[in-house]
């Protein structure tokens, strides 16, 4: 028996190679040079690798722009504008999170390279998900992403809740993965392939007379994804995990998991099951209504800021789903734009939370934010801007993100859904505002000052700058998202 090695377009998988290579190097280094790999060295390597991967995306973009989207490794990996932009966002997210984690690790005395090894591996999984053109590869990406995260969530050895959250995440995540792979199997049964392009071709060329198997498979895939993006009613893990995980890990999770999962979600839905749009839409409609409204309402009653942001991110997931509901190029571009702008905001927000959390990572009650902006105007104002951006105030990217997805939905002809989602945003506004008000309360002026380490400060500054600069001038980002989607490989 001869095995033919498929041709490999190495540029396409270069970011994944870089990230995994970086992880391997660190792993070997820690094994060979015991205790000699300092936190500084590990962080530097992680940031360098992610920046190198980011630089690669420019090269990839030029390639895609010139010769169009291509597939490689037996059509299992795709190189198109969409994957390139999503990859860029993910690796930048890693770089920012690594910097926050660096300061956190020094404060919490959990030094060493392990954190970075796991983060690099997880990120490689997320990047793989954005490029996957095959259900099996998506599953691989999903598992690589998740396994690293399960460990990262448990990373805070000093806190029992961290291990508890990890166990919860692991059990439910494993369950969701199983559901996903079962769905993939059923879809394979119905269409004869796991390759997204082949599925799409099959469904376009044939009429499925007994679609039960296909629907069941699709529904299970949907559940798997809905779990990963924490859409209601598959969201129950997320507040506990967000709360229990070390805060920088929560930031990493909230950004790269969302980008990776949504990229794969879009690819499965638009490219493979695009012909079945009318079947999925009603399900999505219900999912979106619940996700936006429940996420926003439950956030109102929280006292713990990490739980609050967990519900807030559920609310945001609802908005990101709007672009998928539309199922058009505009919708895809809108969701891409949403995750692009959401990632830096959420990392910077969790960076502030990491600082306020203090030694032990315990001070996450809303009361710890009383008067923060009075004592430390810059830190407080930064958090206020980040919160207002998540609220969707104009002149921040949060507004244009909402604008983009809502425009896609209205364009696709369902203004009712847009209004419902917006009402969800109005409910969410209450807790963002309450938090902002707490920041500016003037009755607790003697609390201890919070030390802002350089790297974390830099990340917060970059997050705020990104949301304000592109909020005033969204043209380039919007054009990039649109261009990327036009270069979408069907």
């Amino acid at each position, binding site marked *: 028996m001869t095995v033919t090695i498929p041709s490999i377009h190495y540029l396409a998988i270069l970011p994944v190679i870089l990230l995994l290579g970086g992880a391997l190097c660190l792993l070997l280094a820690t094994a060979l040079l015991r205790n000699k790999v300092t936190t500084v060295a590990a962080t530097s390597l992680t940031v360098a690798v992610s920046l190198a991967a980011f630089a690669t995306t420019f090269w990839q973009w030029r390639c895609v722009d010139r010769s169009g989207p291509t597939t490689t490794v037996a059509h299992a990996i795709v190189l198109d504008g969409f994957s390139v932009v999503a990859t860029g966002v993910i690796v930048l997210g890693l770089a920012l999170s690594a910097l926050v984690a660096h300061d956190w690790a020094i404060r919490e005395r959990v030094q060493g390279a392990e954190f970075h090894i796991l983060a690099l591996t997880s990120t490689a999984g997320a990047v793989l998900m954005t490029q996957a053109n095959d259900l099996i590869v998506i599953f691989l990406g999903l598992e690589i992403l998740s396994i690293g995260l399960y460990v990262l969530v448990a990373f805070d050895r000093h806190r029992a809740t961290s291990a508890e959250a990890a166990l919860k995440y692991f059990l439910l995540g494993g369950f969701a993965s199983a559901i996903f792979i079962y769905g993939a199997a059923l879809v394979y049964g119905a269409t004869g392939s796991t390759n997204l392009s082949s599925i799409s071709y099959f469904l376009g060329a044939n009429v499925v007379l007994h679609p039960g198997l296909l629907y069941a498979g699709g529904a299970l895939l949907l559940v798997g994804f809905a779990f990963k993006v924490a859409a209601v009613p598959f969201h129950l893990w997320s507040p506990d995990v967000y709360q229990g995980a070390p805060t920088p890990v929560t930031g990493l999770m909230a950004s790269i998991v969302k980008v990776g999962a949504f990229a794969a979600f879009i690819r499965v839905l638009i490219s493979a099951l695009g012909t079945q749009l009318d079947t999925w839409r009603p399900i999505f409609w219900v999912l979106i209504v619940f996700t936006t409204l429940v996420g926003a309402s439950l956030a109102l009653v929280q006292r713990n800021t990490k739980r609050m942001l967990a519900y807030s991110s559920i609310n945001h997931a609802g908005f990101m789903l709007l672009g998928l509901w539309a199922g058009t190029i505009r919708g895809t571009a809108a969701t891409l734009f949403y995750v692009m702008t959401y990632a830096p905001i959420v990392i910077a927000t969790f960076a502030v939370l990491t600082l306020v959390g203090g030694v032990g990572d315990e001070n996450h009650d809303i009361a710890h934010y009383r008067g923060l902006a009075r004592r430390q105007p810059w830190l407080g104002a930064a958090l206020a801007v980040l919160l207002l951006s998540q609220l969707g105030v104009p002149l921040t990217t949060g*507004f244009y993100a909402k604008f983009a997805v809502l425009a896609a939905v209205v*364009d696709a002809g369902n203004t009712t859904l847009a209004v419902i989602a917006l009402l969800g945003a109005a409910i969410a*506004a209450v807790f963002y505002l309450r938090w902002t008000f707490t920041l500016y309360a003037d009755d607790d002026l003697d609390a201890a000052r919070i030390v802002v380490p350089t790297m974390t400060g830099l990340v917060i500054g970059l997050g705020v700058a990104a949301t304000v600069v592109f909020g005033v001038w969204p043209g380039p980002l919007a054009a990039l998202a649109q261009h990327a989607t036009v270069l979408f490989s069907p």
Partner: protein
Amino acid sequence: MHSSLWLTLLIVVPLAGALGSMLTRKIEGRAYAVAVVAASVEMVLTLVIAVLYNNHIAGAQTFDFATRHVLSAPFGLAYDVALDGISLFMVVLCALVLLLALLGARDKRREGEFVSWLLLLTSFTMGSFVAHDFLEFFIFFELTLVPTYFIVSMWGGAQRAKAAMKFFIYTFTGSVFLFAGVLYLGFLHQHETQGALTFAYSALSATSMSHGVAVWLFIAFAIAFAVKAPIWPLHTWSPISYAEAPTAGSIEMSALLAKLGSYGLLRFTIGLLPLAFVTMRPIILTLAVIGILYGSALACVTPDLKRLVAYSSLAQMSFITLGLMAGSKIAMVGAVLLMFNHGVITIGFFLIIGFVERRRATATIKDLSGLQGPMPVMAALFTVVMLASIGLPGLSGFVSEYLILIGTFATHAWWGVFGAFGVVAAAVYLLWGYQRVFHGRATGANAEVSDASTKERWVLAPVIVLIIVLGVFPHPVLERISPSVQQLIAHVAPAGVSK
């Protein structure tokens, strides 16, 4: 056609002022000085624009100072400004409100931040009034929420957190429908023309749509603007917000931001959806009449001076709505004039209440009495403002209310009849309020208050001058408003509006 640079300056000058105040906030009094300079420059700019504005150029087109730059094609986002006779006086009012709020309601707590928020608010409000693109208008309209929220929540009274939240959530929820409506209209236009996505006012006003769609859009827009204006029954946020806000905040909200509601109703609701105008007219007119009577009734019984002015504002704003929806040119001109006059009168009210509050630390009516004795000049100034609000002939309020009433009688007599009760009721609650606060014998703390200082008199001088001048010689204002209203009516007219 004049250069659009003038309008851009209107937006940029307060922004620069806000930045300057922020940078100089550490030095005692410097931020305030910077803000006053910026506000004065702004005032001069608006007056120059008012003089330059020429509504006879280019035939029927009454928009001047226009320009358009597309900023982001996928979003249909553009910087598009223009000014006509309707927005002209809103712009003047905006600058006047800022200047008088700064001079008359100085708040020394964290002054740098306070004046920066005020200047930012002015910049955004100016942007809304000169925006000639629906999306751009919406963005500025939403943006005004942020400074207002911070002004109320950080410098307000005891219940400031509740008031600020109520204000924000009401307006934000209202604009949800506006946002959906804006997007819908934009895509309707795009699908019709198969061109690029645009929200330009002139393009959208040419969109053809079915009657049903127009009615739905009308309802969506009207909800947002009715919250802002406020129109009964969506007014419930306003009394607590006006009462809890610091004086400058009350002035901004009631004299200026409320006008964004009626301005939006006129420009974007009536102007863009003439088809639905006729259908919706009786409903909105009825709500306006209810608002007049309801606001007047509550103004009679409320125990607090600020709330009294808040309820009186509800009645007056309903009067404006009545004039806008009546559908005759006279009433509409009167309504636009009342938007300006009510702004000026409200500045006067809140400034004087602020002066009294500064001396007595309360605005509760039963705690005040006989103030006429110790402060005769203040009482006299209050009387002028009050009489203008009641609509005494010879003062500004009369001209606008008269125009609205005769215009409404011509088209909707019964609504006019009930609306006219509002004028009578205004006399009742204002005179009664005046009687309780200023008449009688001043005892205790009330006897020891000082009269209006020279500075306070000077701050109130422009208000009094405008009230008297516009009462006897409104011609320069009317001649600028009329052609623009005429043009709007001509656009709406094919749908069956009487001239």
